[in-house]
């Protein structure tokens, strides 16, 4: 089959690779009809995620048709149309039983490696490094999906791929980011990053009852999308001081909750940005926590900082004093997608949201390398790319 493979930093190629086969009793093989490039794939593309290996198939946002079913699978059959959540979860362990699917204790064959890096291991994830299991991803014609009775959700007739594809990651991720804010009536929520996850965080904050949502970015097309489609007020951090503007907009108190939808490759003009970029380039700091620092300083006393942007390792100049002295709460996690699939599918069916609003580009799988380059450079107002493998 054809698959988009990570070869090295800034080098992905669509290659001919073996077709996936059933390896475990609870596997299915999915013929992929739609797959997306995630903002977090850019962290891999830019070489900031450790334990990638040349030849790894990328992609963790995909859906398609079940074409092969292992004997231990009960709920799915050939021909079912499914969206596949990015974390691989067994459904049986302590973490899964508590709804913490991205922390499944039985799905990461490289858990020992991850424990060395992070203390304890998270679940396996499709196409996202060997620390997260070394599973082939979904930017391909086919994918093998383990624990098929636990992860994939069947899609009812009448919904287009583009309406449901983002249930695989970015819609639930944005939603969980908002849910972790414990939004109360009258709340103001600020969202750093108006990429696709930021857009869904804004939308979800409104769905969960926020009064006001403020989106922060520097790309005009993203700010426009946040205003026009997600309904946010916006700040361009290259034009205003975000801390001052947020104080000004909230009577000096600050937003009730702040969502970091940026992660490890944050950008800022000026000295601090150069400092973090230099330290990261020298591998003295693994992640650039610029948005996170600002989100902490901006948050009102006693408020919540919700981190859904991806971080990999260690950061520097973390404002622990602000966090501690002002009774802030930090909540974070890779999205436990499995627990949001059904309720969010329901919201899509109810017409409360059409996730397709973030899509700007549709490309055949063969053009994935061009898509990565375009997405990285934000060329052609690129916000979200959907790949079509067939």
């Amino acid at each position, binding site marked *: 089959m054809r698959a988009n493979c990570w070869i090295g930093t800034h080098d992905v190629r669509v290659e001919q690779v073996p077709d996936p086969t059933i390896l475990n*009793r609870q596997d299915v093989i999915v013929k992929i009809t739609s797959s997306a490039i995630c903002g977090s794939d850019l962290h891999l593309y830019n070489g900031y995620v450790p334990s990638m*290996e040349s030849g790894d*198939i990328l992609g963790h946002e995909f859906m398609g048709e079940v074409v092969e079913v292992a004997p231990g699978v009960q709920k799915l059959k050939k021909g079912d149309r499914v969206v596949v959540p990015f974390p691989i979860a067994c459904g*049986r362990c*302590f973490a899964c039983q508590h709804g913490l699917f991205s922390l499944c204790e039985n799905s990461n*064959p490289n*858990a020992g490696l991850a424990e060395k890096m992070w203390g304890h291991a998270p679940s*396996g994830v499709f196409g996202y490094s060997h620390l997260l299991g070394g*599973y082939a991803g979904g930017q391909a014609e086919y994918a093998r999906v383990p624990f098929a009775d636990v992860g994939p959700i069947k899609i009812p007739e009448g919904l287009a791929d583009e309406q449901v594809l983002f249930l695989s990651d970015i819609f639930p991720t944005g939603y969980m980011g908002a849910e972790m804010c414990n939004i109360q009536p009258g709340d103001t929520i600020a969202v750093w990053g108006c990429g696709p996850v930021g857009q869904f965080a804004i939308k979800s904050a409104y769905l969960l009852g926020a009064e006001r949502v403020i989106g922060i970015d520097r790309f005009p097309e993203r700010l426009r999308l946040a205003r026009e489609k997600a309904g946010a007020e916006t700040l361009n951090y290259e034009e205003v001081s975000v801390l001052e503007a947020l104080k000004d907009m909230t009577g000096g108190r600050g937003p009730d909750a702040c969502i970091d939808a940026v992660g490890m490759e944050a950008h800022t003009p000026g000295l601090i940005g150069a400092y973090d970029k230099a330290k990261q380039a020298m591998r003295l700091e693994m992640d650039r926590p610029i948005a996170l620092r600002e989100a902490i300083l901006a948050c009102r006393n006693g408020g919540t900082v919700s981190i859904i942007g991806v971080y990999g390792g260690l950061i520097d100049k973390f404002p622990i004093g602000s966090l501690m002295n002002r009774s802030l709460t930090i909540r974070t996690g890779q999205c436990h997608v499995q627990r949001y699939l059904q309720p969010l599918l329901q919201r899509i069916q109810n017409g409360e949201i059409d996730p397709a609003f973030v899509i700007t580009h549709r490309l055949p799988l063969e053009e994935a390398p061009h898509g990565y380059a375009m997405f990285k450079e934000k060329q052609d107002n690129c916000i979200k790319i959907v790949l079509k493998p067939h």
Partner: protein
Amino acid sequence: MDTEQGSTFLKPRNGGACKLAAGLGWFSIGLGAAELIAPDRVAQLAGLPVNNKRESILRAYGWREIAAGIGILTESRPAGWLWARVAGDAVDLASLGSCFAAKDANRAKVTASTLAVAGVTALDLICARQLSRNGHPNGIAARRTVHITHSVIVDHSPEESYGVWRDVTNLSKFVRHVESVQAIGDRRSHWKARGPGGRTIEWDSEVVEDQPNRRIAWRALGSIERSGSIEFSRAIGGRGTVVRIDMQIAPPGGRLAAEALKRLRAIPAQYIGDALRAFKAYMETGEVVQSDASIGFGMHPGRPPAPEELAAAHYASAI
């Protein structure tokens, strides 16, 4: 150097012998430094007029003293270095003995030196013997073995967990690279595993302790001495069973091989950790899930294996 920090051995754990060893270590360094810096003065003190040959011999002895001193003060198990001192003392005594015959020697001073060296030799001997007998914190046998422990919580009862592990033929279903386990009677079993390069490794294992639903201890019979135990205890809060494995490996090649293995301890520790995690996965999900990268030996990219790679791969699967 601070003797308290310089060596774990020198902490008060071992009382008198430790203090004596530290004293001898410092004495060694002091004497060695004197021999190196001022061999002429040392020779005069010992009752021998200086000549070039004696100076260079004394300098060589100086390096020996310093090496022994540093060894004693920095090694956590300095008995060997104390024995080296004893040997050095013998060389010193022999040298002094030969000096009695020298025409230019001051006999009285040489006699005094010989008595002093004999006294130090006695101390070295006492200290070395004490440390060799009981001075090793873990006993001599511990030098040859690598000790590894690992725990997981399994969401099943101790009875169920014990039951699956006690039937050793189950182990090939989840322990990586183990191809088959054959029971020979109730306590003995024959194991076959695939090693790196496709080599098959075989050994017998024997259960040496069996406390139903609580503990199993075993011993492998083969070129690599291994013994281990696994304990099953009820986790608090009704959360299943804490399973704790404890393994000791004594590789062939004795102490040197064990030292090498300790440096590479991560490898068997990783393997044992993975085996226990696999047991948990087998208990909880009925199988051990594999990724595209995990099915073979060594690194494989996260992409489906080719048919020939799949045929060569060994992974425990219920399929």
